[in-house]
Protein backbone atom coordinates (compact mmCIF):
# COMPACT_ATOMS: atom_id res chain seq x y z
CA UNK A 1 0.00 0.00 0.00
CA UNK A 2 3.05 2.19 -0.43
CA UNK A 3 2.18 5.27 -2.47
CA UNK A 4 5.74 6.29 -3.34
CA UNK A 5 6.34 7.01 -7.04
CA UNK A 6 8.91 8.89 -9.09
CA UNK A 7 8.08 12.37 -10.35
CA UNK A 8 7.99 11.04 -13.89
CA UNK A 9 5.58 8.25 -13.03
CA UNK A 10 3.36 10.66 -11.14
CA UNK A 11 3.16 13.34 -13.85
CA UNK A 12 1.59 10.82 -16.28
CA UNK A 13 -1.69 11.48 -14.48
CA UNK A 14 -1.82 14.94 -16.04
CA UNK A 15 -3.67 14.76 -19.35
CA UNK A 16 -4.14 17.37 -22.06
CA UNK A 17 -7.13 19.56 -21.19
CA UNK A 18 -6.97 18.82 -17.48
CA UNK A 19 -7.55 21.23 -14.63
CA UNK A 20 -4.45 21.05 -12.46
CA UNK A 21 -4.18 22.60 -9.00
CA UNK A 22 -0.70 23.59 -7.95
CA UNK A 23 0.10 24.56 -4.35
CA UNK A 24 2.37 27.31 -3.11
CA UNK A 25 2.46 30.99 -2.29
CA UNK A 26 5.05 32.17 -4.77
CA UNK A 27 7.83 29.61 -4.45
CA UNK A 28 7.05 29.02 -0.76
CA UNK A 29 5.38 25.65 -0.48
CA UNK A 30 5.38 25.14 -4.25
CA UNK A 31 5.99 21.57 -5.52
CA UNK A 32 9.15 22.57 -7.39
CA UNK A 33 10.14 19.05 -8.44
CA UNK A 34 6.77 18.24 -9.94
CA UNK A 35 6.56 21.64 -11.65
CA UNK A 36 9.93 20.90 -13.25
CA UNK A 37 8.54 17.55 -14.36
CA UNK A 38 5.47 19.28 -15.78
CA UNK A 39 7.70 21.32 -18.08
CA UNK A 40 8.99 18.05 -19.57
CA UNK A 41 5.54 16.48 -19.83
CA UNK A 42 3.62 16.61 -23.10
CA UNK A 43 0.14 17.55 -21.73
CA UNK A 44 -1.16 20.97 -22.84
CA UNK A 45 -4.37 23.05 -22.89
CA UNK A 46 -4.16 23.03 -19.11
CA UNK A 47 -6.30 25.03 -16.73
CA UNK A 48 -3.98 25.89 -13.87
CA UNK A 49 -5.43 26.64 -10.44
CA UNK A 50 -2.65 28.39 -8.57
CA UNK A 51 -2.42 31.58 -6.53
CA UNK A 52 0.37 33.13 -8.63
CA UNK A 53 1.40 31.04 -11.68
CA UNK A 54 5.00 31.41 -10.55
CA UNK A 55 7.26 34.23 -11.67
CA UNK A 56 8.39 35.34 -15.14
CA UNK A 57 9.98 32.26 -16.67
CA UNK A 58 10.26 30.56 -13.27
CA UNK A 59 8.27 27.68 -11.81
CA UNK A 60 4.84 27.65 -13.44
CA UNK A 61 6.00 30.71 -15.39
CA UNK A 62 8.11 28.27 -17.42
CA UNK A 63 5.04 26.17 -18.23
CA UNK A 64 3.24 29.39 -19.20
CA UNK A 65 6.02 30.27 -21.67
CA UNK A 66 5.75 26.78 -23.14
CA UNK A 67 2.21 27.68 -24.16
CA UNK A 68 0.71 24.78 -22.26
CA UNK A 69 -1.63 26.90 -20.15
CA UNK A 70 -5.05 27.66 -21.59
CA UNK A 71 -6.50 29.25 -18.51
CA UNK A 72 -5.21 30.44 -15.14
CA UNK A 73 -7.36 30.63 -12.02
CA UNK A 74 -5.73 32.49 -9.14
CA UNK A 75 -5.66 35.63 -7.02
CA UNK A 76 -2.35 37.36 -7.62
CA UNK A 77 -0.69 37.22 -11.03
CA UNK A 78 1.09 40.49 -10.28
CA UNK A 79 4.14 38.36 -9.53
CA UNK A 80 4.16 37.15 -13.13
CA UNK A 81 3.16 39.99 -15.44
CA UNK A 82 3.40 37.76 -18.49
CA UNK A 83 0.01 36.42 -17.43
CA UNK A 84 -1.45 39.90 -17.86
CA UNK A 85 0.28 40.39 -21.21
CA UNK A 86 -0.92 37.07 -22.61
CA UNK A 87 -4.41 37.78 -21.32
CA UNK A 88 -4.52 41.21 -22.98
CA UNK A 89 -3.36 39.57 -26.21
CA UNK A 90 -6.22 37.08 -25.93
CA UNK A 91 -3.81 34.16 -25.73
CA UNK A 92 -4.96 32.82 -22.39
CA UNK A 93 -8.08 32.95 -20.25
CA UNK A 94 -7.81 34.28 -16.75
CA UNK A 95 -10.16 33.94 -13.79
CA UNK A 96 -9.07 36.39 -11.10
CA UNK A 97 -10.49 35.58 -7.67
CA UNK A 98 -9.97 37.22 -4.28
CA UNK A 99 -7.52 35.12 -2.31
CA UNK A 100 -10.01 34.15 0.39
CA UNK A 101 -12.57 33.19 -2.23
CA UNK A 102 -9.89 31.26 -4.08
CA UNK A 103 -9.02 29.13 -1.04
CA UNK A 104 -12.65 28.84 0.10
CA UNK A 105 -13.86 27.71 -3.33
CA UNK A 106 -11.19 25.01 -3.39
CA UNK A 107 -12.19 23.96 0.11
CA UNK A 108 -15.82 23.84 -1.08
CA UNK A 109 -14.78 21.66 -4.01
CA UNK A 110 -13.18 19.19 -1.64
CA UNK A 111 -15.97 19.33 0.91
CA UNK A 112 -18.91 18.61 -1.39
CA UNK A 113 -20.23 22.16 -1.15
CA UNK A 114 -21.65 23.32 -4.49
CA UNK A 115 -21.31 27.03 -3.80
CA UNK A 116 -21.46 29.57 -1.00
CA UNK A 117 -22.30 33.17 -0.27
CA UNK A 118 -19.54 35.57 0.71
CA UNK A 119 -19.44 39.33 1.18
CA UNK A 120 -15.96 39.41 -0.32
CA UNK A 121 -16.06 41.07 -3.71
CA UNK A 122 -19.80 41.79 -3.59
CA UNK A 123 -20.57 44.94 -5.55
CA UNK A 124 -17.15 45.00 -7.23
CA UNK A 125 -16.02 44.26 -10.75
CA UNK A 126 -15.06 40.72 -9.73
CA UNK A 127 -18.69 39.95 -8.83
CA UNK A 128 -20.06 41.00 -12.22
CA UNK A 129 -22.39 38.38 -13.64
CA UNK A 130 -22.54 36.49 -10.36
CA UNK A 131 -25.68 35.83 -8.39
CA UNK A 132 -26.16 38.16 -5.45
CA UNK A 133 -28.23 37.79 -2.31
CA UNK A 134 -29.03 40.11 0.58
CA UNK A 135 -28.57 38.31 3.88
CA UNK A 136 -29.07 40.13 7.19
CA UNK A 137 -29.10 43.41 5.31
CA UNK A 138 -25.73 42.88 3.62
CA UNK A 139 -24.89 42.01 0.06
CA UNK A 140 -23.37 38.59 -0.58
CA UNK A 141 -22.20 37.03 -3.82
CA UNK A 142 -22.52 33.36 -4.81
CA UNK A 143 -19.19 31.70 -5.48
CA UNK A 144 -18.95 28.23 -6.95
CA UNK A 145 -16.71 25.38 -5.88
CA UNK A 146 -13.44 24.83 -7.73
CA UNK A 147 -12.27 21.28 -8.41
CA UNK A 148 -9.39 19.76 -10.31
CA UNK A 149 -8.52 16.61 -12.17
CA UNK A 150 -5.13 16.55 -10.53
CA UNK A 151 -3.66 18.42 -7.56
CA UNK A 152 0.09 18.76 -7.21
CA UNK A 153 0.94 19.82 -3.71
CA UNK A 154 3.97 20.22 -1.47
CA UNK A 155 4.21 18.94 2.08
CA UNK A 156 7.09 18.59 4.50
CA UNK A 157 6.66 15.00 5.71
CA UNK A 158 4.62 12.03 4.59
CA UNK A 159 4.30 8.58 6.06
CA UNK A 160 4.03 5.70 3.62
CA UNK A 161 0.23 5.75 3.88
CA UNK A 162 0.27 9.34 2.62
CA UNK A 163 -0.56 11.17 5.85
CA UNK A 164 0.94 14.65 5.54
CA UNK A 165 2.43 17.39 7.69
CA UNK A 166 3.52 20.79 6.44
CA UNK A 167 6.23 23.27 7.39
CA UNK A 168 5.52 26.83 8.59
CA UNK A 169 4.02 29.13 5.94
CA UNK A 170 4.81 26.55 3.24
CA UNK A 171 1.44 25.07 4.26
CA UNK A 172 -0.71 27.74 2.53
CA UNK A 173 -2.98 26.35 -0.24
CA UNK A 174 -1.61 22.81 -0.15
CA UNK A 175 -4.00 21.25 2.40
CA UNK A 176 -7.15 22.50 0.65
CA UNK A 177 -5.91 21.53 -2.80
CA UNK A 178 -5.25 18.03 -1.44
CA UNK A 179 -8.99 17.69 -0.89
CA UNK A 180 -10.29 19.05 -4.18
CA UNK A 181 -8.91 16.96 -7.03
CA UNK A 182 -9.65 13.50 -8.38
CA UNK A 183 -5.98 12.59 -8.14
CA UNK A 184 -3.55 14.06 -5.63
CA UNK A 185 0.23 14.02 -5.94
CA UNK A 186 2.10 15.09 -2.81
CA UNK A 187 5.73 16.10 -3.18
CA UNK A 188 7.50 15.86 0.18
CA UNK A 189 10.94 16.44 1.64
CA UNK A 190 10.85 13.50 4.03
CA UNK A 191 9.13 10.12 4.14
CA UNK A 192 8.70 8.34 7.46
CA UNK A 193 7.22 5.04 8.60
CA UNK A 194 3.57 4.71 9.46
CA UNK A 195 3.10 5.53 13.12
CA UNK A 196 5.82 8.15 13.28
CA UNK A 197 3.46 11.08 12.77
CA UNK A 198 1.39 12.14 15.78
CA UNK A 199 -2.28 11.33 14.97
CA UNK A 200 -3.34 14.67 16.48
CA UNK A 201 -0.94 16.63 14.25
CA UNK A 202 -1.57 15.11 10.85
CA UNK A 203 -2.92 17.94 8.73
CA UNK A 204 -3.85 15.96 5.61
CA UNK A 205 -5.11 12.45 6.38
CA UNK A 206 -4.03 9.82 3.86
CA UNK A 207 -7.46 9.35 2.32
CA UNK A 208 -6.82 12.52 0.30
CA UNK A 209 -3.47 11.45 -1.14
CA UNK A 210 -2.91 9.13 -4.10
CA UNK A 211 0.81 9.38 -4.73
CA UNK A 212 3.85 10.58 -2.77
CA UNK A 213 6.93 11.87 -4.60
CA UNK A 214 10.23 12.73 -2.98
CA UNK A 215 11.34 16.31 -3.69
CA UNK A 216 14.54 16.92 -5.66
CA UNK A 217 14.32 20.72 -5.81
CA UNK A 218 13.94 22.59 -2.54
CA UNK A 219 13.74 26.22 -1.51
CA UNK A 220 16.55 26.83 0.97
CA UNK A 221 18.45 29.79 2.40
CA UNK A 222 20.58 29.62 -0.73
CA UNK A 223 17.55 29.75 -3.04
CA UNK A 224 16.24 26.83 -5.06
CA UNK A 225 18.73 23.98 -4.93
CA UNK A 226 18.76 20.61 -6.63
CA UNK A 227 19.55 17.77 -4.26
CA UNK A 228 22.39 15.45 -5.24
Amino acid at each position, binding site marked *: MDKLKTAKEAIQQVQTGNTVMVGG*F*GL*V*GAPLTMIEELTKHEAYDLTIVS*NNVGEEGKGLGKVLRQGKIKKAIG*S*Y*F*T*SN*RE*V*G*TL*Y*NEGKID*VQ*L*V*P*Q*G*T*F*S*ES*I*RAGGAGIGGYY*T*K*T*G*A*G*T*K*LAEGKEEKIMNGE*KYVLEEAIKGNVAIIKADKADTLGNLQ*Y*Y*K*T*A*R*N*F*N*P*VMATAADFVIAEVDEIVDVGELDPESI*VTPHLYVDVVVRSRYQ*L*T*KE*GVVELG
Partner: protein
Amino acid sequence: MNLDKREIIAKRAAEELKPGSIINLGIGIPTLVTKFINPDDFFIHTENGLLGMKELESDEEFDPLIVNAGKMAVGEEIGASYFDSATSFSMIRGGHVDVAILGALQVDENGQIANWAIPGKNILGVGGAMDLLSGAKKVIVSITHTAKDGRIKLVKECDYPITSLRAVDAIVTDLGFFERVDHEWVLKEIMPNSSLEEITKNTEFHFKVDQDIN
Protein backbone atom coordinates in the same frame (compact mmCIF):
# COMPACT_ATOMS: atom_id res chain seq x y z
CA MET B 1 15.05 59.03 15.23
CA ASN B 2 14.79 60.76 11.90
CA LEU B 3 11.68 59.44 10.15
CA ASP B 4 10.89 59.66 6.48
CA LYS B 5 7.39 60.39 5.19
CA ARG B 6 6.38 56.75 5.03
CA GLU B 7 7.64 56.06 8.54
CA ILE B 8 5.77 59.06 9.91
CA ILE B 9 2.56 57.63 8.47
CA ALA B 10 3.27 54.15 9.84
CA LYS B 11 4.06 55.56 13.28
CA ARG B 12 0.79 57.51 13.39
CA ALA B 13 -1.15 54.42 12.26
CA ALA B 14 0.51 52.39 15.02
CA GLU B 15 -0.89 54.81 17.62
CA GLU B 16 -4.40 53.73 16.62
CA LEU B 17 -3.80 50.15 17.75
CA LYS B 18 -5.06 48.91 21.12
CA PRO B 19 -2.82 46.47 23.00
CA GLY B 20 -3.89 42.86 22.58
CA SER B 21 -5.25 43.47 19.08
CA ILE B 22 -5.04 41.05 16.19
CA ILE B 23 -3.60 43.04 13.30
CA ASN B 24 -3.16 42.40 9.60
CA LEU B 25 -0.76 44.58 7.65
CA GLY B 26 -0.91 45.15 3.91
CA ILE B 27 2.06 45.52 1.61
CA GLY B 28 3.98 48.84 1.55
CA ILE B 29 3.65 51.48 4.27
CA PRO B 30 1.50 49.20 6.51
CA THR B 31 4.42 46.78 6.77
CA LEU B 32 6.45 49.53 8.47
CA VAL B 33 3.97 49.66 11.37
CA THR B 34 5.85 46.80 13.08
CA LYS B 35 8.73 49.22 13.69
CA PHE B 36 6.54 51.34 15.95
CA ILE B 37 4.74 48.83 18.13
CA ASN B 38 5.88 46.74 21.04
CA PRO B 39 5.75 43.20 19.64
CA ASP B 40 4.68 41.84 23.04
CA ASP B 41 1.47 43.89 22.94
CA PHE B 42 0.13 42.84 19.53
CA PHE B 43 -0.51 39.78 17.43
CA ILE B 44 0.22 40.08 13.76
CA HIS B 45 -1.79 37.91 11.43
CA THR B 46 -0.55 37.30 7.92
CA GLU B 47 -3.09 35.84 5.49
CA ASN B 48 -0.72 33.29 4.03
CA GLY B 49 -1.14 31.35 7.26
CA LEU B 50 0.55 32.65 10.39
CA LEU B 51 -0.70 34.34 13.55
CA GLY B 52 2.22 35.73 15.52
CA MET B 53 4.54 37.15 12.90
CA LYS B 54 7.42 39.36 13.89
CA GLU B 55 10.23 41.18 12.14
CA LEU B 56 13.40 39.20 11.56
CA GLU B 57 15.85 40.04 14.33
CA SER B 58 18.96 38.36 12.98
CA ASP B 59 20.36 36.55 9.97
CA GLU B 60 20.27 33.26 11.88
CA GLU B 61 16.50 33.57 12.19
CA PHE B 62 16.08 33.77 8.41
CA ASP B 63 13.97 30.91 7.09
CA PRO B 64 12.87 31.14 3.44
CA LEU B 65 9.71 29.20 4.30
CA ILE B 66 8.41 31.76 6.81
CA VAL B 67 7.11 34.73 4.85
CA ASN B 68 4.47 37.42 5.12
CA ALA B 69 1.77 38.31 2.60
CA GLY B 70 4.32 40.30 0.62
CA LYS B 71 6.49 37.16 0.39
CA MET B 72 9.17 38.80 2.56
CA ALA B 73 10.96 36.63 5.11
CA VAL B 74 9.67 37.21 8.66
CA GLY B 75 10.08 35.69 12.11
CA GLU B 76 7.84 33.66 14.37
CA GLU B 77 6.72 35.11 17.71
CA ILE B 78 6.41 32.93 20.82
CA GLY B 79 2.82 31.64 20.92
CA ALA B 80 2.49 31.71 17.14
CA SER B 81 0.44 29.24 15.12
CA TYR B 82 0.34 28.14 11.48
CA PHE B 83 -2.73 27.23 9.40
CA ASP B 84 -3.77 26.79 5.78
CA SER B 85 -5.02 29.62 3.57
CA ALA B 86 -8.70 28.66 3.79
CA THR B 87 -8.52 28.76 7.59
CA SER B 88 -6.60 32.02 7.47
CA PHE B 89 -9.22 33.74 5.35
CA SER B 90 -11.97 32.27 7.52
CA MET B 91 -10.41 34.28 10.33
CA ILE B 92 -10.47 37.40 8.17
CA ARG B 93 -13.95 37.04 6.68
CA GLY B 94 -15.37 35.80 9.97
CA GLY B 95 -14.45 38.99 11.81
CA HIS B 96 -11.64 37.62 13.94
CA VAL B 97 -9.05 40.18 12.86
CA ASP B 98 -9.38 43.41 14.82
CA VAL B 99 -7.57 45.84 12.55
CA ALA B 100 -6.35 45.76 8.96
CA ILE B 101 -3.96 48.49 7.89
CA LEU B 102 -3.98 48.78 4.13
CA GLY B 103 -2.60 50.80 1.30
CA ALA B 104 -4.87 52.33 -1.35
CA LEU B 105 -4.73 54.02 -4.72
CA GLN B 106 -7.84 56.08 -3.95
CA VAL B 107 -10.25 56.64 -1.06
CA ASP B 108 -13.53 58.38 -1.75
CA GLU B 109 -16.16 60.41 0.04
CA ASN B 110 -18.21 57.28 0.83
CA GLY B 111 -15.18 55.69 2.44
CA GLN B 112 -14.80 53.15 -0.33
CA ILE B 113 -11.31 52.43 -1.53
CA ALA B 114 -9.64 51.26 -4.73
CA ASN B 115 -6.44 49.31 -4.28
CA TRP B 116 -6.36 46.30 -6.56
CA ALA B 117 -6.51 47.23 -10.22
CA ILE B 118 -5.30 49.99 -12.52
CA PRO B 119 -7.28 50.11 -15.76
CA GLY B 120 -5.11 49.51 -18.82
CA LYS B 121 -2.18 47.92 -17.03
CA ASN B 122 -1.25 44.27 -17.41
CA ILE B 123 -1.28 43.66 -13.68
CA LEU B 124 -3.76 41.03 -12.65
CA GLY B 125 -3.80 40.71 -8.91
CA VAL B 126 -6.26 41.20 -6.12
CA GLY B 127 -4.78 39.05 -3.35
CA GLY B 128 -6.44 39.37 0.05
CA ALA B 129 -7.53 43.02 -0.15
CA MET B 130 -11.22 42.34 -0.77
CA ASP B 131 -11.36 39.79 2.02
CA LEU B 132 -9.72 42.11 4.53
CA LEU B 133 -12.22 44.82 3.68
CA SER B 134 -15.15 42.46 3.97
CA GLY B 135 -14.09 41.04 7.32
CA ALA B 136 -11.69 43.08 9.43
CA LYS B 137 -13.43 44.83 12.32
CA LYS B 138 -11.59 48.06 11.61
CA VAL B 139 -9.79 49.15 8.47
CA ILE B 140 -7.20 51.93 8.51
CA VAL B 141 -5.79 53.20 5.24
CA SER B 142 -2.17 54.37 5.44
CA ILE B 143 -0.99 56.30 2.42
CA THR B 144 0.92 59.31 1.30
CA HIS B 145 -1.62 62.09 0.91
CA THR B 146 -0.89 62.47 -2.79
CA ALA B 147 0.90 60.33 -5.36
CA LYS B 148 4.46 61.12 -6.44
CA ASP B 149 3.15 62.85 -9.54
CA GLY B 150 0.84 65.00 -7.41
CA ARG B 151 -2.30 63.01 -8.28
CA ILE B 152 -4.91 63.36 -5.55
CA LYS B 153 -5.80 60.12 -3.75
CA LEU B 154 -8.61 61.35 -1.51
CA VAL B 155 -11.23 61.73 -4.20
CA LYS B 156 -14.92 62.48 -4.58
CA GLU B 157 -15.54 59.09 -6.13
CA CYS B 158 -13.08 56.33 -7.01
CA ASP B 159 -12.51 56.08 -10.74
CA TYR B 160 -10.39 52.95 -10.33
CA PRO B 161 -12.41 49.79 -9.61
CA ILE B 162 -13.46 49.69 -5.94
CA THR B 163 -12.23 46.96 -3.65
CA SER B 164 -15.35 46.60 -1.52
CA LEU B 165 -18.71 48.19 -0.76
CA ARG B 166 -17.49 48.57 2.82
CA ALA B 167 -16.33 51.98 4.00
CA VAL B 168 -12.98 52.14 5.72
CA ASP B 169 -12.76 53.59 9.23
CA ALA B 170 -9.75 55.88 9.15
CA ILE B 171 -7.09 57.35 6.89
CA VAL B 172 -3.58 58.23 7.98
CA THR B 173 -1.50 60.31 5.61
CA ASP B 174 1.62 62.42 5.97
CA LEU B 175 -0.66 65.48 6.16
CA GLY B 176 -3.54 64.43 8.36
CA PHE B 177 -5.60 61.87 10.19
CA PHE B 178 -9.24 61.34 9.18
CA GLU B 179 -11.92 59.32 10.88
CA ARG B 180 -15.28 58.18 9.60
CA VAL B 181 -18.02 59.59 11.86
CA ASP B 182 -21.72 59.18 10.98
CA HIS B 183 -20.90 58.30 7.36
CA GLU B 184 -18.74 61.38 6.87
CA TRP B 185 -15.03 62.07 6.89
CA VAL B 186 -13.80 64.15 9.81
CA LEU B 187 -10.26 65.54 9.94
CA LYS B 188 -9.21 64.76 13.49
CA GLU B 189 -5.60 65.78 13.36
CA ILE B 190 -3.19 67.82 11.30
CA MET B 191 0.23 66.26 11.14
CA PRO B 192 3.30 68.29 12.14
CA ASN B 193 4.66 70.39 9.26
CA SER B 194 1.23 70.35 7.60
CA SER B 195 -1.69 72.77 7.64
CA LEU B 196 -5.42 72.81 7.05
CA GLU B 197 -4.78 74.77 3.86
CA GLU B 198 -2.39 72.15 2.53
CA ILE B 199 -4.80 69.33 3.37
CA THR B 200 -7.76 71.13 1.80
CA LYS B 201 -5.79 71.86 -1.35
CA ASN B 202 -4.81 68.21 -1.72
CA THR B 203 -8.14 66.60 -0.85
CA GLU B 204 -11.07 66.31 -3.22
CA PHE B 205 -13.63 64.68 -0.97
CA HIS B 206 -15.68 66.72 1.44
CA PHE B 207 -14.61 66.48 5.09
CA LYS B 208 -15.54 68.14 8.35
CA VAL B 209 -12.88 69.56 10.62
CA ASP B 210 -13.00 68.33 14.18
CA GLN B 211 -13.77 71.15 16.61
CA ASP B 212 -10.92 70.13 18.90
CA ILE B 213 -8.35 70.53 16.17
CA ASN B 214 -5.58 72.97 17.02
